[in-house]
């Protein structure tokens, strides 16, 4: 069912459907394109997302053309469990796409939202997630301008899967890319590692850890805007999601054909995350983050950039964690806490549950 679609238009002027009851479940018919689909759109989606691009409910959203480069990205979200400390699958679906746009220096503008819902999914939970999507989109300053909903048989999906795609306007003159890192550049990290993956793991039945674990899930475009204002010579930005910072740094080292030297003692990791890592034999450098970024910039700009990051709430714990080197191209070397060295490789062969 497209909720910016003909079905909706057809029902636009008809009487409102029955109110959803608090204990109601999503039925296959909610995805049939008929009356129930319409009720879902009218009562749950539209009140939250209403905006001039979405409200006409045509088959596609019309968005204004901008001069210059447009950034376009998409991502699907299948995290389990769908609610976790610090966020939920909806918040994640907005942040993930907003952050992907931000990392190439684009100002996120419009998002699409597609839901695949398992039959029997509680309407209350759907409302919570839609409201969370709305809040996060507001926070990030993006509009949901088009969308789609499908309902599949019980067992054909696990509760709820979300896909978002996003469009953003790239700042004139900005060209961030993983291929731009140069020997001598500094590597900055915006905050502590592993918070998201640990928050999700902590909720899984087999662990049920108690503590202060909270996902770092957040839209980074605000901080990125400030960073670009202050330092137009940033070479590259990445958000270290799945595979963690180790994988992200290796990707950049590889595309830029440079080496990297990272100081383990500079890398912020929360005590609670550190403790569970020890318990489970995990390495924080390989854990997923959803509200952190790595920035690479010329050494002379690093101090100013760090200052700008530190004044933003999402970059309070930012640190310069290392530098780009001419030696050991395509390799990331970690200077360990006790003074040793080791190669920091990409994540390989991990068996990870669904974390995003």
């Amino acid at each position, binding site marked *: 069912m497209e909720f910016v679609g003909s079905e909706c238009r057809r029902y636009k002027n008809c009487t409102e459907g029955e109110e959803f009851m608090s204990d109601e479940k999503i039925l296959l018919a909610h995805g049939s394109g008929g009356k129930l689909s319409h009720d879902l759109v009218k009562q749950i989606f539209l009140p939250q997302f209403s905006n001039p691009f979405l409200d006409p409910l045509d088959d596609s959203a019309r968005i204004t053309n901008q001069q210059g480069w447009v950034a376009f990205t998409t991502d699907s979200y299948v995290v389990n469990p769908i609610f976790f400390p610090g966020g939920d699958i909806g918040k994640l679906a907005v942040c993930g796409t907003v952050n992907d746009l931000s990392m190439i220096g684009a100002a996120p503008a419009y998002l699409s939202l597609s839901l695949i819902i398992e039959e029997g999914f509680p309407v209350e939970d759907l409302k919570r997630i839609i409201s969370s999507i709305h809040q996060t989109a507001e926070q990030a300053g993006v509009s949901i301008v088009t969308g789609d909903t499908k309902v599949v048989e019980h067992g054909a999906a696990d509760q709820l899967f979300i896909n978002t795609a996003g469009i953003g306007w790239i700042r004139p003159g900005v060209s961030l890319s993983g291929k731009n890192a140069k020997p001598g550049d500094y590597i900055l990290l915006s905050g502590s590692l592993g918070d998201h993956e640990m928050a999700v793991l902590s909720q899984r039945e*087999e662990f049920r850890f108690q503590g202060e674990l909270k996902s770092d899930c957040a839209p980074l475009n605000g901080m990125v805007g400030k960073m670009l204002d202050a330092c137009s010579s940033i070479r590259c930005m990445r958000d270290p999601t799945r595979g963690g910072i180790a994988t992200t740094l290796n990707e950049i080292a590889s595309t830029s054909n440079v080496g990297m030297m990272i100081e383990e*003692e500079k890398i912020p990791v929360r005590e609670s995350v*550190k403790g569970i890592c020890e318990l489970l034999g995990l390495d924080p450098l390989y854990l997923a983050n959803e509200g952190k970024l790595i920035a690479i910039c010329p050494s002379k700009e690093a101090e100013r950039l760090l200052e700008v990051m530190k004044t933003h709430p999402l970059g309070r714990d930012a640190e310069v964690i290392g530098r780009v080197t001419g030696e050991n191209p395509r390799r990331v070397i970690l200077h360990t*806490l*006790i*003074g040793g060295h080791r190669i920091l*490789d990409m994540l390989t062969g991990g068996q990870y549950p669904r974390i995003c």
Partner: protein
Amino acid sequence: MKFIDEFRDKEIAEGLIQRIRNNSSRPIQLMEVCGTHTVSIFRYGIRGLLPDHIRLLSGPGCPVCVTPNEDIDLAIALSRQKDVIIATFGDMMKVPGSTSSLQKEKAEGRDIRIIYSSLEALKIAKENPGRRVVFLAIGFETTSPTIAVAILRAKNENLHNLFFLNSQKRVPPALLALLQTKRIKIDGLILPGHVSTIIGTIPYQFIAREFGRPAVITGFEPLDILQGIWMLVKQIEENRATIEVQYRRVVHEEGNPIALSKIGEVFEKDESRWRGLGLIPDTGYRFKESYKEMDVRNFEVDVEPSREHPECVCGEVLQGIKTPLECRLFKRVCHPENPIGPCMVSIEGTCHTYFKFS
């Protein structure tokens, strides 16, 4: 005390390294028996901090790696039986058997579930009374008490659908076999901290008494390992050979009597087959008579004849005879995404550690 940062202090580490450098006068080879030590040594770059003449060898201390192919094949054959649910620790999923792996079988639709504690197997059995649940009981003495407790509880609760594929291993008699083969010069042993938490120090006395080798039971943090190495160097330089404990904050001479009594209630010593080392007396456990009905080896099941990749040298890697770098398959054919031997699968496997950190 947070029990993490205190054991990663740079200044203390530098002091220990200096002491090792100043006092070690001759070339020595030390074996770290346990896979967790191997990981820690690589993770903190400890090899590069030691003088060149101190060589660290990785030993047979990864339970997944020493599990023989025939046990993996048995697990795979069992998973193909319609009424069977396999409950296993995650590391076992990717281990290649003779022609398949549990991961491939899961993709074929077999009911294989990853668990994190032996007691979860008990829960699965209770929730599925109409099916047979088989727990892959893999591990050293650290894991055995939890397996014993699961068995005792199952018996207590009259649970008749929980079974165990018992492939547990005992460390000290394996070290005996390793020292007896004399295929490799070992000047001192870094003994596993957590196995020793259970069994104490007495089962290792033969290492010093019969072989004249020093050994130190060591913790897993970088400072633990450096101190363990320092204690070994000191013994060697002073021509002493005793079993010392570095990991005093958890290891006591008598071990953990409660855990040992649980093991003793359910199991008795038996020979066991190790990958690369073959059948070694006393290195395994068999069920005591009153628990035999839970042994999966009573099942009628056809298991394919076991075979291993002819070029895989996991067996020699496990004994410290070869390093992964001497294997023709290493990194070329065998890597974590396509493991040929078990040492590339387990996060504590020597090949996996070499792949990841060097």
